């Protein structure tokens, strides 16, 4: 039922969503950390800047990004990764920020007093304690990247195998009045996303942290 080009788009989409999620977690963590623990006067401003990619229509944002990337990464996979990363930045930063803030410094101090260095603290304390925040951030980013096409279409140009992701393909199908293909792909996308999310959320809810809230 699906054509090779569909499969290609599916592969590319998963790759894009995966890479974007990974990059964003790496990028958003230090920003969120700084927002949570710095006492700088610039905090509110940085926080507002981080939210800006949300405010512009995706194609318009894409247009400005195109201006930025025109001589480098436009119309490449790297280009759409950059676009997606910027577009989804707020969805990664904000939940992490809130998560770090509620954790507070105390667990880290205890860990440090027990001999853990910074990276060690992050790995053994922050990651598990802020797991909820990371899950929210990752799933929002992942799903959002699956569905986003405005920015990607603008700076990617729908090149099969390079920048033509599933959302762009579905969009194309609807534009071509090819409703049947659009329905099929949409349903497939929803099914896969549901599956992934149910697994992620299912495992998450079993966390012992749930118990912790009782005492």
């Amino acid at each position, binding site marked *: 039922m699906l054509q090779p080009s569909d499969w290609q788009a599916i592969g590319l989409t998963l790759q894009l969503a995966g890479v974007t999620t990974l990059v964003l977690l790496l990028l958003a963590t230090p920003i969120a950390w700084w927002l949570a623990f710095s006492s700088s006067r610039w905090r509110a401003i940085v926080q507002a800047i981080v939210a800006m990619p949300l405010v512009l229509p995706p194609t318009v944002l894409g247009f400005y990004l195109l201006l930025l990337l025109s001589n480098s990464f436009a119309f490449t996979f790297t280009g759409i990764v950059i676009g997606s990363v910027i577009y989804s930045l707020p969805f990664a930063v904000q939940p992490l920020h809130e998560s770090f803030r509620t954790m507070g410094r105390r667990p880290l101090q*205890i*860990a440090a*007093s*027990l*001999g853990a260095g910074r990276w*060690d603290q992050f790995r053994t304390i922050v990651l598990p*304690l802020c797991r909820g925040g990371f899950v929210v951030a990752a799933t929002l980013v992942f799903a959002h990247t699956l569905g986003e096409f405005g920015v990607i279409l603008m700076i990617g140009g729908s090149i099969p195998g390079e920048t033509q992701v599933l959302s762009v393909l579905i969009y194309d199908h609807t534009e071509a009045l090819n409703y049947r293909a659009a329905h099929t792909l949409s349903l497939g996308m929803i099914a896969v996303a549901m599956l992934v999310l149910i697994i992620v959320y299912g495992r998450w809810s079993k966390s012992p*942290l749930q118990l*912790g809230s009782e005492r």
Partner: protein
Amino acid sequence: MSLKVKCHLPLQHFALDVAVSIPTQGITAIVGPSGSGKTTFLEVFSGVRQVANAEVSFNQTLWQQREFLPLNQRRVGLVLQHPSLFPHLNVADNLRYGWQRARGRKELGWDEVIAACDLNALLQQFPAQLSGGQQQRVAFARALLAQPQLLVLDEPFSALDDDARQYFVSYLRQLSEQHQLPIIWVSHQLSDVAQVSDTLVQFSQGKVVSHGPIVSELQREPLRSKLALSVLDTHYDATQQGQEECWRLELAGQDLVLPKPQWQQQQPGASVRLRVFARDVSLTREFVTESSVQNQLAAEVVDSFTARHPAELVVQLRVGEQYLLALITKASWQRLDLRPGTRVVAHLKAAALHETLREAL
């Protein structure tokens, strides 16, 4: 060898304003009324609260001056007022956290600490599944297993019952003596503190109002009237062994007989430090023969001080070269016609002495 702390930190109604040097040998107790800045002081010198311009040095190492030595390089075993266990790790993993990161030879063994804190049955539980007292025991063990060079405790046994607390207080003494582990300890139970501490630091309104060796702190106000406890150095006398279950101690040529603390095997001639509450000492002019009170010491009245209650007096007695306090009513003072220089007999109830001695040195 000492911990030197200098800091100024404005708090709500006063500032924490401290410049002290605390010996890093034995047990140092920090006492003071609720809200007097004890916790804040611990937080500042241990580095949990990073305060600008504070100066802290531990033995030869600078912990904070212009530079701030990160917590993980200080090797301080911290037990804070709130247990702060890692909620995502079970008890075993909480304990392992510091244990695995400890470098060098492990002075304090895993099995030893687990057994001492009675945690064997709890290893698989998560913090949310522990009772308040269990949480405290885990936090305490976790700090020990990280093999600290200094143990800092903030009311670590407040959720434990009397017996367990007594046990841990004497365990502190054991740690301090057997492992030469310096301990700084905030406690609101003066009687615990008096039992095992070597040094006493008293806080009030953010300031250190008094600090020094416990023996002399106890002989000074406000503790003299408030706690009314004396510390006596005696010798274990093996030659005149009485009953099997009792202990014969020698104090300025006189004998004391006490129920023997079960856990301790003393060498003849070893010194034993007795802590005697003034309220457990009564006075007569003469030796009383037909009494359940076995320990009667010839003593001399040195002085008398006001006690907490206006109807009472704290009487300072000299036994040999040492001082003993007795709490009596003013009526008795008059009835017995006491004054400085009067020779009296001090009655130390063996049972009472043994209570303060129980399980402790």
